[in-house]
């Protein structure tokens, strides 16, 4: 077990290294440098451009630039090209803003998908099954920003609460309860919107997993023993059906971070995705690369954790 974990961890570190090399190469090899953001500006003389390039190490060979990036990243010295602010605290603040969104979306996905999927599996072919199937497909087929705009219109129109941004401005004097409710309202729609795709995919997966398990011999045995239906479903079937979902946890992370670009942009949420978008617009390479690096590290950590949890949850699996 110990050696397996160690080897797995090492493999993941190698993967992370390769991810960072590829990301670095892609960003630097693509045409368009930070020094060229404003090429038509007559005040930019060639010597100025050369000065900028030297300051950002852009005149060095690619591997040297990678070395500088890694060195600065791990010593915490990495500065944004755009405003010379240290990158890590900048990303840290934005990440803390995104965190409630990620947690909210994850909670919604996992608490809604299971009941819906299980019920659809138990009543296979019923009206409920067919309509949830259709709704699930509709949800993954609708452009996220289209649905979000409809949701904003609906919420603002029917409930009269503002939903753009993280909080309403100018309510510092309101009661704490009011402020907390305000935060929840602002959180609810964006996290629901980022969750919808996940709900659709996961509930379909829960359904097929439950169908698979319900056909197994041990479920028939449990029924033959005369156990009541709830025990059969929730203790014998569901517990076995749950296993594959441990691995889903790690894999849903990159989608969440990638998707946050769109949803944070729509809801003006000052989070990680929006920071990434702004960095892309201004060709702020250190920020782009570091966000990508952190996302990859989180994904690898997530899949590592789910590998370990899988072994803990399923005694049939031995890590060797």
């Amino acid at each position, binding site marked *: 077990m110990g050696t397996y974990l160690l080897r797995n961890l090492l493999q993941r570190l190698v993967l992370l290294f390769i991810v960072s090399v590829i990301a670095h190469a892609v*960003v630097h090899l693509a045409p368009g440098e930070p020094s060229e953001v404003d090429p038509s500006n007559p005040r930019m003389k060639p010597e100025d451009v050369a000065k900028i390039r030297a300051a950002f190490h852009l005149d060095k060979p690619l591997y040297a630039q990678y070395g500088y990036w890694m060195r600065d990243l791990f010593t915490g010295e990495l500065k944004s090209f755009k405003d010379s602010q240290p990158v890590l605290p900048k990303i840290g603040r934005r990440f803390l803003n995104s965190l409630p969104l990620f947690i909210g979306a994850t909670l919604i996905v996992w608490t809604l998908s299971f009941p819906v999927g299980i019920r659809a599996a138990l009543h296979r072919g019923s009206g409920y099954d067919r309509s949830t199937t259709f709704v699930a497909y509709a949800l993954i087929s609708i452009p996220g920003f289209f649905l979000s705009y409809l949701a904003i219109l609906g919420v603002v129109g029917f409930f009269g609460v503002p939903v753009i941004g993280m909080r309403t401005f100018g309510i510092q004097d309101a009661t704490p309860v009011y402020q907390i409710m305000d935060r929840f309202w602002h959180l609810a729609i964006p996290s629901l919107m980022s969750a919808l795709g996940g709900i659709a995919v996961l509930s379909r997966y829960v359904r097929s997993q439950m169908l698979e398990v319900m056909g197994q011999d041990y479920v028939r045995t449990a029924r033959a023993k005369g156990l009541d239906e709830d025990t059969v479903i929730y203790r014998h079937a569901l517990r076995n059906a749950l296993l594959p979902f441990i691995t889903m946890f790690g894999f849903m992370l990159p989608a969440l971070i990638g998707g946050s670009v769109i949803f944070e942009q729509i809801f003006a949420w000052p989070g990680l995705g929006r920071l990434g978008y702004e960095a892309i617009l201004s060709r702020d390479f250190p920020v782009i690369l570091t966000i990508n690096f952190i996302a990859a590290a989180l994904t690898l950590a997530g899949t590592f954790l789910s590998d370990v949890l899988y072994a803990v949850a399923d005694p049939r699996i031995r890590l060797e």
Partner: protein
Amino acid sequence: MSAQAVASVHAQRPLAESPGRQFWRVFKRDRLAMAGLVVLALLLGIALAGKALTAWVPAFDPATVRLVDKLRPPLSPVSNLVAPAERPLGSIYVLGTDDLGRDVAARMLQGASVSLLIGFVAVGIAMTIGVLLGGLAGYYGGVRLGVVTVDTLIMRFTDVMLCFPTFFLILTVVALLPPSIYNIMIVIGVTSWMGAARFVRAEFLSLRSQDFVVAAQALGLPEWRIIFRHMLPNAMSPLLVSATISVADAILTESALSFLGFGVQPPFATWGNVLADGKDYIFDAPWLFFIPGFAILAVVLAFNLAGEGLREALNPKLRSR
């Protein structure tokens, strides 16, 4: 033999049914999938007709700007000030006009073919890479290159690609490259082959040990022939399903890119950028937002439902039922 007798023979011997017919019988039973297929057939017709009409018929030119007729709601008549050559068919804006007085119907017609093209080319690229890498890993997986096997090399690379937040990566590359419709297709294709590679490898691993492949190898057939003529057709059905669903994803990705301003640039109209432009007029001209939105929903839904129907109909476990 009378038709009835033929039918009864078929009823007794369902195994004699050809695979294609069997597939069709199962597929037809799934009403949602059939609806999806009908929508897709319609869409293909619209896209082809749209391509021809917008290119050759001046009444359908999506780039005609009529500033006197801007933001007209659907079904409104053309104003008298518009020159006869610039009038849409029947002198009525069937789907209204946008902020420059361009005919939304013509733009949607042009967009249908561009959106479909993006979906198909991107998925074509993704599937080609997926089949090549997955096939290599599945067939030559055991070959060692120095310290690592081919399988380790390819599958670890796939893992690397899965670590990227895909949309963020696409956005980064599209934003850095000069804006062009081809770059968008290529970037979407190059970042979405991982699923295909994984299951082609899995299929190949299980096919490799099957008797017909062993027999082909014993006959001394060249390896490319075994791979492309014997193994690949057997791995085709999951590929087809995944391709159908990936087209849907590519269309959605394009619309999301358009929303952020990195989609297909004018003068090309795609449903994604018609929708993205329309969002600014959601109160003044809601049709600019709702028409492309629901069009994308319908088409992507059709791709997803047809893909799911294919999955069911191609699954041998479900066929006999």
